[in-house]
């Protein structure tokens, strides 16, 4: 009797202890994570702008407005298209770099450290650096092109509508290829060497070896890396902010830049909340879809 009650007390104590440990974390995440989310949904049904503070609910007005907002769909298109271009380039270059550094080499750690540097610096600094690099007069990029082309060039990288996206692409690929490189290097190091040698002896083609041995071995890691990068690219803001500010006009506006403009420049709060909710909804659906696909593939 007394023993069972003491066990009961120990269990109660353990239960209290385990919840006590997660309590601060859950509290902080609820405050900064869940509260704004609920507030966001509420606001998106109200009518709050710079001039109005109307807290009454008026249905799906702002969501209806989303459909006719060309600037929104354009910025969404920019975001998706840029992700679709930048991500494969980063994967491909990262993979090639990983192959280069796969076998032992003198000074390997130093090389890897140097290549990694862009990834750990602030995207704001990366954007600023590339804005200076791309300066049409004082930056080195035009000089190098002029040297290669053998004549003077005056390419307005951060202003010309046809050059801004390539310029941003260069900055983004420069900063995040090392991320793919590092993760793929680790993944490739874990591919079974004996299997590769056996395939070589059997005379399997490069493509065959890649598809049957290498890809299955690195797929889980590659999937995580792609997911992390895709979500990052989707929220692209800092680099664009420093390099072009979304311009010229709205030429380089991503969904994050547009949402920022609507909320903090135009103070169209309710409408920007609707945009934010649309983005969260789309991303969640996309991630769930991606996770499902991988599970089915297994």
């Amino acid at each position, binding site marked *: 009797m007394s023993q069972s009650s003491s066990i009961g007390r120990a269990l109660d104590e353990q239960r209290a202890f385990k919840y006590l440990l997660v309590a601060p974390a859950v509290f902080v995440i609820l*405050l900064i994570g869940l509260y704004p989310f609920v507030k966001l949904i509420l606001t998106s049904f109200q009518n709050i702008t710079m001039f109005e503070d109307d807290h009454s609910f008026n249905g799906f007005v702002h969501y209806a407005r989303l459909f006719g907002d060309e600037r929104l769909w354009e910025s969404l298109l920019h975001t998706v298209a840029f992700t679709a271009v930048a991500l494969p380039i980063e994967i491909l270059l990262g993979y090639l770099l990983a192959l280069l550094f796969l076998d032992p080499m003198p000074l390997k750690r130093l090389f890897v450290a140097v290549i990694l540097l862009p990834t750990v*610096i602030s995207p704001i600094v990366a954007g600023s650096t590339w804005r200076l690099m791309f300066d049409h007069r*004082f930056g080195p990029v035009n000089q190098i092109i002029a040297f290669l082309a053998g004549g003077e060039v005056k390419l307005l990288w951060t202003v010309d509508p046809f050059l801004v996206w390539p310029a941003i692409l260069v900055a983004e690929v*420069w900063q995040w290829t090392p991320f793919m490189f590092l993760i793929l290097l680790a993944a490739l190091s874990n591919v079974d060497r004996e299997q590769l040698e056996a395939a070589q002896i059997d005379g399997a083609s490069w493509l065959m070896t890649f598809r049957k041995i290498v890809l299955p071995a690195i797929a889980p890691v590659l999937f995580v890396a792609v997911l*992390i990068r895709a979500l990052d690219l989707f929220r692209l*803001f800092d680099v664009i902010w420093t390099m072009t500010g979304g311009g010229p006009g709205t030429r380089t506006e991503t*969904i994050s830049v547009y949402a920022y403009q609507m909320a903090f420049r135009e103070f169209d709060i309710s409408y920007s909340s609707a945009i934010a909710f649309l983005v969260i909804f789309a991303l969640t659906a996309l991630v769930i879809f991606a996770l499902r696909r991988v599970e089915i593939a297994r």
Partner: protein
Amino acid sequence: MTRGAKGWRLAARLACALAVATLFLFPIYWLAAISIKTPEEIFAYPPVWIPSGFRLDGYVTLFRDGDAWAVWNSLVTAGISTVLAMVIGFIAAYSIVRYRTGGDHLAIWIISQRMIPPICVAFPIFLLFVSLRIVDTYTGLVMLYTAFNLPYVIWMMRGFIQEIPLELEQSALVDGLSRWAVLWKVVLPMSRAGFFATAVFTFIFAWNDFLFALILTRSDVITYPVQVTGYFGSQSTFWSKIGAMSMLGVLPMIFVVGTMQRFIVRGFSMGAVKG
């Protein structure tokens, strides 16, 4: 393969590695060079590739004008929020691993918090901070970075704690240590390498953040990335200040890469690659 062919292959790989490293390093070199150039050199055409001397005028100006406070603000907010996030995240991760608190759902819910783009919740957070009167204060930024980094800390520490053998904790409990003492005297020392690596990453995320700092600061606790963007004027761009301020933000990161290389793969891949 003959010996000669092997040697040539290595030489070719080394040459490629050198070219690639130069390519990745060059923009940072350019930034560093701008920070120590004279104004004439910065605005020379064609550009000056190698600064003639080591002029620290850009840095001196930052300290004299008080702009360098931005770096201090970054240090304080990133530093304190890292300590808080590590402590809160560590105990939560322990509870989730050892007591299966909340099952799988709690862990998944926590990590999913990181998926949402910051801009989507930026305005409600701004409103919350206005009503709490903590806009443009250390308290506000520290609180935000703590919350923002918690999912990452919990996720990473979960992996590190899972690797600690359970027997160690059990024998410590049998020896009469309290659960609380086990946490700090057994679990923490056993996972200290992972703990330290996670802390460094947490610091980097807060150190490099721009969007939240842009929205939640005005002047008092402005951080260095916000300060950098302030030097891009519509009329003129303050190149030497951009160079110097950016370098102050980059230098700690050079140190991080130099010392933390062993953990960087795991940190970046959110634990997916053990490295």
